[in-house]
């Protein structure tokens, strides 16, 4: 083949690179621009409404005086319960499945089920929680019920993230540890957990970021849409009384405001939405930073 012909042929083959690049950019932009537009719209509408009073006021019939105090406190407390429950359970399950469980059809079945659980609509978790936590266990329409519900919801995410983080640890590291006479638990404790912590943490935060925006299961278990008091402080009441307090969360507050006819409430909803998105982004930012920090010292 002559050089000129060769070059023409290369150009012809490379055309597909150009075509794919264009398709890829378009696909990417559809996602990015949609989010940017939504976020910008919400920011433009809502930012003007954000001031100190907005964060420290209870909801009100008068849009100008309404705030998100009970909502952000409720969201934060529910997230605390979710994290405290889902993180240890999820990590323990993931470590067990990867390091301890024999690989047979039972573990395969469990694996398939966990993956499927991640795709179950959140309303289904809400219904389960209503029957189980609220009525069966008698936990009531409380922060504890909501936290447990969301913990169930993100458990598959935490388990899958844990397993993937553990799987990325080279086998030779395990063999090195066992070769020194370590037991299985020592290997998990000194190697598996520390080296997979970055990946696990990322999974946890992604799960939490999903949970904080969940509305359906929280409504199902009976969260209030209008609440003008805070859960009892652990200092003034019993240390765990707040767990059984009625509550509301950010997305429910938003939903409540968007369903009002007055335009001023739409502004409040946009402002609350802005705060919620910023909370989510902050969590994701923290995940990225922590992953970077934890991975810096781990190489193989």
């Amino acid at each position, binding site marked *: 083949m002559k050089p000129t012909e060769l070059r023409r042929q290369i150009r012809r083959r490379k055309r597909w690179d150009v075509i794919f690049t264009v398709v890829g950019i378009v696909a990417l932009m559809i996602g990015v621009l949609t989010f940017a537009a939504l976020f910008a719209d919400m920011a433009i509408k809502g930012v003007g409404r954000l001031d100190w009073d907005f964060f420290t006021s209870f909801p009100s019939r008068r849009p100008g005086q309404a705030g998100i105090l009970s909502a952000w406190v409720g969201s934060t407390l529910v997230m605390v319960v979710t994290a405290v429950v889902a993180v240890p359970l999820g990590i323990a399950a993931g470590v067990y499945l990867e390091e301890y469980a024999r690989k047979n059809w039972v573990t395969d079945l469990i694996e398939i089920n966990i993956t499927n659980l991640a795709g179950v609509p959140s309303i289904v978790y809400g219904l389960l929680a209503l029957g189980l936590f609220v009525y069966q266990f008698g936990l009531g329409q409380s922060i504890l019920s909501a936290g447990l519900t969301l913990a169930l919801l993100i458990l598959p995410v935490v388990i899958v993230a844990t397993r993937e983080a553990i799987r990325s640890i080279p086998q030779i*590291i395990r063999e090195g540890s*066992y*070769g020194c*006479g370590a*037991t299985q638990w020592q290997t998990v404790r000194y190697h598996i957990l520390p080296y997979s912590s970055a990946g696990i943490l990322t999974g946890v935060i992604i799960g939490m970021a999903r949970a904080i925006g969940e509305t359906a299961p929280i409504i199902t278990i009976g969260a209030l849409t209008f609440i003008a008091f805070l859960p009892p402080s652990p200092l003034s009441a019993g240390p765990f009384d707040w767990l059984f307090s009625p509550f509301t969360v950010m997305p429910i507050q938003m939903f409540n405001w968007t369903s009002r006819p007055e335009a001023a409430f739409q502004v409040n909803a946009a402002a609350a939405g802005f705060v919620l998105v910023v909370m989510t982004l902050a969590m994701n930012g923290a995940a990225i930073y922590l992953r970077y920090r934890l991975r810096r010292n781990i*190489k193989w």
Partner: protein
Amino acid sequence: MSAPDTLMKTELLMPQEKAVAAPAPKAEVDDLSFYYGDFKALKGISMPVYERKVTALIGPSGCGKSTFLRCFNRMHDLYPGNRYEGRIVLHPDDTDLLARGVDPIEVRMRIGMVFQKPNPFPKTIFENVAYGLRVRGESSRRRIEDKVEQALDDAALLDEVKDRMHEPAYNLSGGQQQRLCIARALATDPELLLFDEPTSALDPIATASIEELIHDLKQRVTILIVTHNMQQAARVSDFTAYMYLGEMVEFGVTDELFIKPKKKQTEDYITGRFG
């Protein structure tokens, strides 16, 4: 197996004229077979491993030499479907390493291993060497420090790392990392040290330093080394075993095996006609 049996087997494997110089066996492999599931990877291997000598395992890729080595510290127990037959008797207490009642952890506490690719833990240099002591429950800071220093010295690494003991181990070069892994194994005073192609990932200079180290270490520990490099086997070992397709073809004093192999198959391999 009774004691006379053991003696006879040793004599069979050891040429009579060398028996005078023959040291005591640290371990004896007796009719060892190993299965990966249904695949029989090792077929009835018997050989001695002499105390404070270097024994090399050579043979073409896939001959089972690494599989054989990993039987000594029950590494195969980590994976399902593996099965041993036969015995590996560790002296002086005549413990059968492969016996069901013997915990692989006990075996690995007595027998150290250095792997093909340097595998320091992503921790500090100090913590790498201290690891074996920590898993044994040693809590005295002083004793750990003394042991770590001693092990690093024995692994000819102390001078290079003494000022940066608390830096990450992966900052070390490949050769240093491998010596760190040797120090990690030495820190717990193993009776037998297994090397699985320890220099295959290293450059010639690092290789030379590891070989020199192995030569020095045999003063105090019995060494079993797998190598794909015949020159290396000739340089570092006192005894050599040639394996092929899971069988022990020939075992003997290294000099004799390389100069005057008894089996045609061994000769073909070491002269490069095959393998």
